[in-house]
C-alpha cells in the first residue's frame, strides 16, 4: 500500500504536580490549539448521580476565582478563538483554537479553573445549568426520534454493575439531586493536575510555552489519587443474542446491532475498525451496497466502533428500513448479511477500499490543529504515549484481510449479538393520521 508518510513532531514533559504535557509545533498558520483532557467521565459517577460528569462540564464555564460566569466564552471569542467541552464515558475534555498570539490567555484561563474553580461556585449557577442540561436532554434525547438509543444501547450491552451501563446525560431526577457539595467533592477528586493531560498543537514557541505552563499550572497541588473504578473486564462475547424491541414515536424501523469487540489500542482493535469500515463506511460499504442499493430494503446503513479502552469495545451496525419494510424483515436482512460475512469472509477488494478510505480520513483530520491536539491528549491519557498518533497509519497498514476474517469469525456470530430494534408505535404507521404524534434522529455526543 503506497502512502506518503506523515509524522508530527511531539515533545512531552511532566510538571512536579503531575500535569502531563504534550507539544506539537507547526508554523504554517498563526493558529494554536489547546486541548485539556481530564481522566473522568460518566463511568466515575456514583449511584444516584447519573449525568453528574456532564453537568460538571457545564459548571466549568461558570467562572473561577478571576473569571466571571460565561466570561471564559467571551474572552476566547473576543480573542478570535473557538472553544467547547465534551463529556464521554471515561473522559471530559475542554478545547480552544485561537490565533497564536492568544495562547497565554488560554493557558491562564484553563489554569484558573483547574486551580481556583470553587470560589466562584454558587447555588444559583448550579440551578441554571441544571435547567440548561435538562433542556439539552430534551433536545438531544427525548424530543429526537430514536434519541434514546444513545442511553438504551449501553444499558443493553453493559451489565448493570458496569461503569459504562448508565446514562451519560443522566436522568431528570438524578440531575435534580445534584448539590453544591457534590460539585466540590467531584472537583477535588478528579479535576487535579495529576489526572489531566494538556496538549498544544500549532504555532507556538516551545521554550516560552514551557515557561508559561509552569507559571500558570505549576502551583496547583496534585490530588489525593483517583478512586479506582470497579472491575471493567467483560467476556469476549455476549454468549448469545440479546434482543430489545422498542415501540416508539418513529416513522421507520431502525436496527442497532452491536458486537463486543477488542478494546481500542490492541492489534485486534484495528481489524475490528477495518471490519466496521468494510461493513458501513460510505456508500461503497457492504451494507450500503447490499441493503440500500441492491436489495432496497434500507434507507440508510452505517457501522462504527465506540473506541473504548476498558472492558470491551463495541462494533455497532445501524440500519434504517425503507418505508413498507417491516421491522422483522429489516432484522432478518441485516442478520443475513452478517451471516454471509461470517461464512465467506471479506474480499481483498473490500479490504483495500476500507484501508484507502481510512488513510485519507486520517490525513484530512490531521490538517486541523484542534484534531491533532485532541488525538495527542487521547493517546497520552489512555496509553501515556502520545507518540502513538504517529503509528496509527502503520497500525492500519499492518492489518491483513485474514486478520479481519479472524475477527469476523470470532465476534460477529450469533453468540455475540445485542440488538435494539425501534418499531413505529401502533398507529404511527407510514401514513399517519393528522392527529398523531411522531418522532426521528440520533443523539450526538453531549457537549456544553
Amino acid at each position, binding site marked *: 500500500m503506497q502512502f*506518503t508518510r506523515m509524522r508530527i513532531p511531539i515533545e512531552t514533559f511532566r510538571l512536579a504536580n503531575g500535569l502531563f504535557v504534550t507539544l506539537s509545533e507547526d508554523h*504554517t498558520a498563526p*493558529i494554536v490549539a489547546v486541548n485539556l483532557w481530564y481522566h473522568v467521565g460518566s463511568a466515575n459517577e456514583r449511584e444516584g448521580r447519573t449525568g453528574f460528569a456532564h453537568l460538571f462540564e457545564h459548571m466549568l464555564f461558570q467562572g473561577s476565582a*478571576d473569571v466571571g460566569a*460565561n466570561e471564559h466564552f*467571551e474572552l476566547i471569542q*473576543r*480573542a*478570535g*478563538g*473557538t472553544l467547547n467541552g465534551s463529556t464521554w464515558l471515561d473522559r471530559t475534555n475542554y478545547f480552544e*483554537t*485561537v*490565533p*497564536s498570539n*492568544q495562547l*497565554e*490567555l488560554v493557558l*491562564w484561563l484553563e489554569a*484558573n479553573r483547574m*486551580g481556583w474553580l470553587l*470560589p466562584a461556585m454558587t447555588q444559583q449557577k448550579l440551578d*441554571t445549568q*441544571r435547567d*440548561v*442540561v*435538562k*433542556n439539552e436532554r*430534551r*433536545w438531544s434525547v*427525548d*424530543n*429526537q*426520534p430514536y434519541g434514546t438509543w444513545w442511553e438504551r444501547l449501553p444499558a443493553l450491552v453493559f451489565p448493570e454493575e458496569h461503569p459504562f451501563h448508565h446514562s451519560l446525560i443522566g436522568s431528570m431526577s438524578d440531575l435534580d439531586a445534584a448539590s453544591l457539595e457534590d460539585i466540590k467533592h467531584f472537583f477535588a477528586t478528579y479535576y487535579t493536575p495529576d489526572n489531566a493531560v494538556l496538549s498544544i498543537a500549532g*504555532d507556538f514557541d516551545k521554550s516560552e510555552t514551557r515557561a508559561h505552563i509552569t*507559571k500558570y499550572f505549576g502551583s*496547583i*497541588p496534585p490530588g*489525593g489519587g483517583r478512586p479506582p473504578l470497579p472491575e471493567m473486564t467483560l467476556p469476549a462475547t455476549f454468549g448469545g443474542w440479546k434482543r430489545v424491541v422498542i415501540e416508539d414515536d418513529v*416513522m421507520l424501523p431502525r436496527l442497532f446491532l452491536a458486537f463486543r469487540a477488542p478494546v481500542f489500542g490492541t492489534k485486534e482493535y484495528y481489524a475490528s475498525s477495518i471490519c466496521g469500515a468494510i461493513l458501513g463506511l*460510505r456508500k*461503497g460499504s457492504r451494507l450500503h451496497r447490499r441493503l*440500500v442499493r*441492491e436489495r*432496497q430494503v434500507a434507507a440508510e446503513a452505517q457501522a462504527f466502533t465506540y473506541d473504548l479502552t476498558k472492558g470491551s469495545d463495541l462494533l455497532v451496525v445501524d440500519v*434504517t428500513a*425503507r*418505508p413498507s419494510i417491516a421491522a422483522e424483515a429489516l432484522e432478518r436482512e441485516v442478520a443475513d448479511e452478517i451471516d454471509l460475512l461470517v461464512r465467506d469472509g471479506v474480499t481483498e477488494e473490500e479490504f*483495500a*477500499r476500507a484501508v484507502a478510505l481510512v488513510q485519507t480520513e486520517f*490525513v*484530512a483530520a490531521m490538517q486541523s*490543529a484542534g484534531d491533532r491536539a485532541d488525538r495527542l491528549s487521547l493517546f497520552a491519557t489512555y496509553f501515556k504515549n502520545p507518540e502513538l498518533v504517529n503509528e496509527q497509519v502503520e497500525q492500519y497498514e499492518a492489518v491483513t484481510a485474514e486478520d479481519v476474517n479472524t475477527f469476523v469469525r470470532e465476534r460477529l456470530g450469533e453468540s455475540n449479538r445485542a440488538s435494539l430494534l425501534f418499531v413505529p408505535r401502533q398507529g404511527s404507521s407510514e401514513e*399517519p393520521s*393528522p*392527529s398523531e404524534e*411522531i*418522532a*426521528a*434522529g440520533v443523539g450526538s455526543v453531549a457537549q456544553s
Partner: protein
Amino acid sequence: MSAHMNGGSAVLERAPRPSSAAPRPYQFPRFDRTALPNGLKLVIAPIPKLPIVTITALLDAGAVCDPQGRFGLAQLTADLLLEGSTSSDGTAITDRFERLGASVEAHADWDVATVTVTTLTHKLRPTFELLGEVLRVPAFNDREVERLKNERLAELLQLRAEPRGLADEFFSSFLYESSSRYARPDGGDEASVRGLTRDAVSGFYAKRYSPNGMTMIVAGDVRAGDIEQLARDVLGDWKGGVPVAMTASDEAARRTRAVHIVSKSDAPQSELRIGHVGLPRRHPDYFSAVIMNAVLGGLFSSRINLNLREAHGYTYGASSYFDWRRQRGPWVVATAVASEVTHSAAIEVINEIERIRSAPITPDELSLATSYLDGVFPIRFETTSAIAAALTTLVVYGLPDDWYDTYREHVRAVMAADVLSAAERHLHPEALQMVVVGSAAAVRDSVEAMAFGPVQVYDVEGRPT
C-alpha cells in the same frame, strides 16, 4: 474521600491575567484563475502543507433552476451523477472512487450544484479522470432514478417525526409567497418527487451541465500548471453552451406578523423559529448586518443566547442567522425550549429584536463581535475542503478576488452606528413570522395571549386544523 482539597485555597499563588502579544500576519491562500477554450473556468490554490487535495466542480444548476412543479429535480440530477456513467454502473463508480481513498459528494443547494472530492495527492490523476467521467457521461439509469426518488420519499417521511427539520421546512414555507421556489423544500415535496422522471433528469442535465457554465476549484498540494494540463486532458474536448441564468422570487407571503403552530402532541419541547425574509448575499450592508447578527444572536455571548440560556435557563442554546443565498434568504432566530415557557422565550426574543433597533450596541459588544470575526479568520481555513468551500462562495456570489484579503479590514471598519442602522433597516419586527413545532394544547393559549398576531394550528403535513 480525597484528603486534598485544591480549590478555594487562598494560599496558592495565582498569576494575573496576561496581555496578548501582537498577532502574526496571515494571508488567505493565493489562487490563480484561468480558463480553457471550451469556457471551463479554473480556480487553483496550491497548499503545500499535507499530501491532500480537494476539487469542487461547480455548476449553475441549483434548486432555483427547478421547472415549475418539478421541485427536487436539481437535487436528484446532482445525486444521480454518482450513480452510474455510460461505462460504469453506480456500484462500480462508487467502488472506483473509494478504492482510490477518495471521498466524493454531489449536491445541489439553492443556487448551484457541486461535486466535491478529497483525495491524497498521489491519487490525483485517476480521481480527476473519474470526476470528469461522472460529469460528462452520466447514465441516469431508470433503476437508480427510482431508487433515489424512493430515498427522498423516505427522508420526507422521517422529517414528519423530526421536530428541528420540520420547524426549518415549515418556517420557509410560511415565509415566502406560495409561487416562490423558496416556499418549497429544496429537495422537493412528496407530490413533486413522485412526478420526476428519467427524461426530466436528462433534460435538466442537458440544459444546465456544460463546461461553459462550470468552474473547477482545486485547493491542496498541487501546482497550477499541472492542474491546468489535467483539466485540458480530461475536460478540454467537452463542448456545450452557456446555461440561462435563473432566479427565485424572494417575496414574503405576509407583511404582518403571524403565528404558525405545527402540532405534535406530547412533545417535551417546542422548536421555535422567529424571523422574516433577510438579505441577498451580495448586499452593500453585508458586514454591518453580519456584526449586528453576531451581537444579537450569532455568538455564544450574544444577547439572545445569554438571555434565554444563561439568564433564564429556558434552552440549551439559541441563535440567529442569515441564510445567505443569491436572492433574499431567511433571517431567523432558532431555539428549542420547554413547552411551558414557549411564549416567555418568544417575548424575550422579540424584546431583543426591538432593543437592538432602538439604541446603539455598547463598545464592548461591538469589539467582541469584530475581534471575534477578525481573529477567527485564519482558523476558518485550516483544511483544503474549507479553502475550496471559501473559493466556492467567491464564485457563486461573484465576489471580488480580493474579498478574503480585505475581509478583516471590512470587519474592523464597522462602527456601532452602522450596526444600529443595519438593525433599523434590515430587522422588521412588524413582519416577524413565528413557527412553533410542539404541543398545540400546551402552548396555544399562552401564545395567543401574547397578542403577537393571528394564530393558526397545523398538523405535521401542514394541513390547517
